[in-house]
């Protein structure tokens, strides 16, 4: 009888411990949302692996506290992402939500998270809304604002004297940002702007249209799986020799293993490259290759940086997760070893950073890789920060 009572008491105690918020404070809970299934799953893998590497580097602690990561698969759908965020906030009571590849998902998730008083640390998507009117003190990103990268490409192509460009992107928030960013610096004629369905895999019909329009060059934004499909089909259709292709977020370490030689010679602009020489980057790439056996991508570095950024914030408030003000102030300093080198935060919590021109080349060992050609922008600010009401 007595044992029964004792057992019940122990049970009750454990149950109360499990649900009481005080107990939860000893662990940092981070919800990490990305796309793990479907064609974009490969990107999610890059991000998830990088998060794990970051935790390894931090000794499986964040800011000195135990850490629990809850991964969520948004299936590239905003509504699923929103639902995941709700669940993470209400069921798991996370302190930070991080990750998110797609701008449309980000637009659904970020407000949900920040309205609940929780930090949203973006590690890829940078829709212009969040840089401008919808900026929020609880929102930080370790990546970039969508427009910035195509701005660099637009500038490069403008400088090269290329005219009559045919522009293509998937039809979602980032796709439109990319084209508008491109047009901000490219002043030549845009023959046509075509938006395709997000996640589309067969571009043959669009490629036929391009051929019929015979532009001087094609500019595209096709991240991940879409990039693999588009570039392959572009080459298969015999357009590569007819019309040169320029791209952003299309040729990268995620798509190169599938594209290989097909991508050689294509230009990209970007804020990061594996051949960027700094200590943090070399350590990251070296350890990543050792642990996972493949070359990481910018999706990975951003996610890695995201965990380090959170770590710097929690460390700054000495593990007092209720001290939001302190954590905001800490993160604004960007005081951690970023893989891109040092950078600063703009008022809207978007990085001010360099953008480079990259070219796909056959490396010394015969493997296809990307190499920095030159710097297009130095300490480049996004075009929307003035719309952001935050002052600091």
């Amino acid at each position, binding site marked *: 009888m007595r044992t029964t009572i004792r057992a019940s008491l122990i049970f009750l105690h454990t149950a109360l411990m499990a649900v009481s918020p005080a107990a939860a404070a000893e662990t940092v809970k981070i919800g990490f949302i990305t796309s793990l299934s479907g064609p974009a799953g*490969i990107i999610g893998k890059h991000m998830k692996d990088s998060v794990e590497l970051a935790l390894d580097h931090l000794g499986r602690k964040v800011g000195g506290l135990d850490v629990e990561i809850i991964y969520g698969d948004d299936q590239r759908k905003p509504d699923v992402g929103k639902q995941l965020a709700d669940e993470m906030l209400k069921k798991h009571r996370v302190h930070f939500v991080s990750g998110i590849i797609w701008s449309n998902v980000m637009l659904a998730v970020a407000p949900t998270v920040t309205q609940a008083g929780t930090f949203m640390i973006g590690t890829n998507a940078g829709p212009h809304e969040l840089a401008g009117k919808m900026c929020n003190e609880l929102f930080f990103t370790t990546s970039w604002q969508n427009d910035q990268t195509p701005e660099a490409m637009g500038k490069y192509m403008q400088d090269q004297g290329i005219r009559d460009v045919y522009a293509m992107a998937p039809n979602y928030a980032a796709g439109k940002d990319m084209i508008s960013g491109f047009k901000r610096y490219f002043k030549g004629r845009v023959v046509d702007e075509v938006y395709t369905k997000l996640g589309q*895999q067969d571009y043959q019909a669009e490629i*036929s249209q391009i051929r019929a329009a015979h532009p001087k060059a094609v500019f595209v934004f096709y991240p991940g799986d879409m990039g693999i499909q588009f570039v392959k089909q572009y080459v298969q259709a015999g357009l590569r020799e007819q019309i040169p292709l320029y791209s952003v977020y299309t040729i990268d370490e995620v798509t190169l293993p599938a594209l290989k030689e097909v991508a050689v010679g294509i230009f990209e602009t970007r804020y990061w490259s594996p051949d960027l020489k700094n200590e943090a980057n070399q350590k990251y790439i070296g350890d990543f290759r050792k642990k996972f056996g493949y070359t990481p991508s910018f999706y990975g570095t951003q996610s890695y940086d995201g965990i380090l950024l959170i770590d710097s914030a929690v460390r700054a408030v000495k593990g007092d997760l209720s001290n939001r003000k302190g954590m905001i102030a800490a993160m604004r300093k960007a005081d951690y070893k970023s893989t891109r080198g040092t950078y600063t935060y703009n008022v809207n919590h978007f990085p001010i950073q360099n953008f480079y021109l990259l070219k796909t080349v056959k490396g010394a060992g015969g493997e296809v890789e990307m190499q920095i050609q030159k710097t297009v922008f130095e300490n480049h600010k996004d075009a929307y920060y003035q719309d952001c009401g935050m002052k600091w």
Partner: protein
Amino acid sequence: MILLVLEQTLNGLQYGVMLLLMAAGLTLVFGIMNLVNLAHGSLYMVGAYLATGFYQWTGSFLASVALALAATLVVGIVVEVVALRTLYERDHLDQVLATFGLILFFNELIAIVWGRAALYSSLPGWLSGHMQVLPGVRYPVYRALVILVGLVVAALLYLMVTRTRLGMLIRAGASNRTMVAALGVNIRLLYTVVFGVGAALAGLAGLIAGPIYAVQPGMGEQILIQVFVVIVIGGIGSIRGAVVGAVIVGMVDTLGRAFLKPVLSIVLSPSAADTAGPALASMLIYMLMAAVLAVRPQGLFPVR
């Protein structure tokens, strides 16, 4: 402009051929066994995975095609014997639900074996190039081959159904299976064979699709609904209907996507055309199906 229409017609034909390969098996299963098999798309997926897997393993494209075809045939037969047999006598509602359950199972099984992320199968060099169809029109070799294979398969199927004993039995079974059995034909075996052939065709569609689309769990469902549209338009159970339906749907879908927007912009304002064009284009085949059913409730080529 004419060249563009020609090229888009080829694209439509290529898509139609893929639909046809899927539709042929589905319509036979539907027609003679009276089974609504939503899991047909899973066989397509299995075909795509197996082909990709075998290609990585053997390094030979043709060997992987042969192996994948044989393997999907076997998978189809196993699925028929284990799961679907008991469903023939059930009503359509049960069939829809049970095969919906099979979809979940297959998608997850594939996800466990190969992971959720998509695979990319590449083509051997001799298929990844392009060819000159007409002066100024280059067309990918692989897609041209797809069209050719599809047309050959369609012709073979047509001959099989119209000229062979098996074809006669299939048609006879579609109208009166009790009588076919009462005349000494093992109708169960016939069903299994037909299902296996249908599965192999779906697998063929899947392995063809591999290099064009991403190979991923759930890929079957993306095409399945279109395939249903094809067979409903064509008339359930009719191979001829499937051929005609597939070509119609392939053409309407592709040409609609390519030309509806420019055509509409002649009539409407550009911004209205921008909105209405893609909307109408993606709805076109469903409107077509509703229209066909309104006029001919049994499809274009009713079996009975």
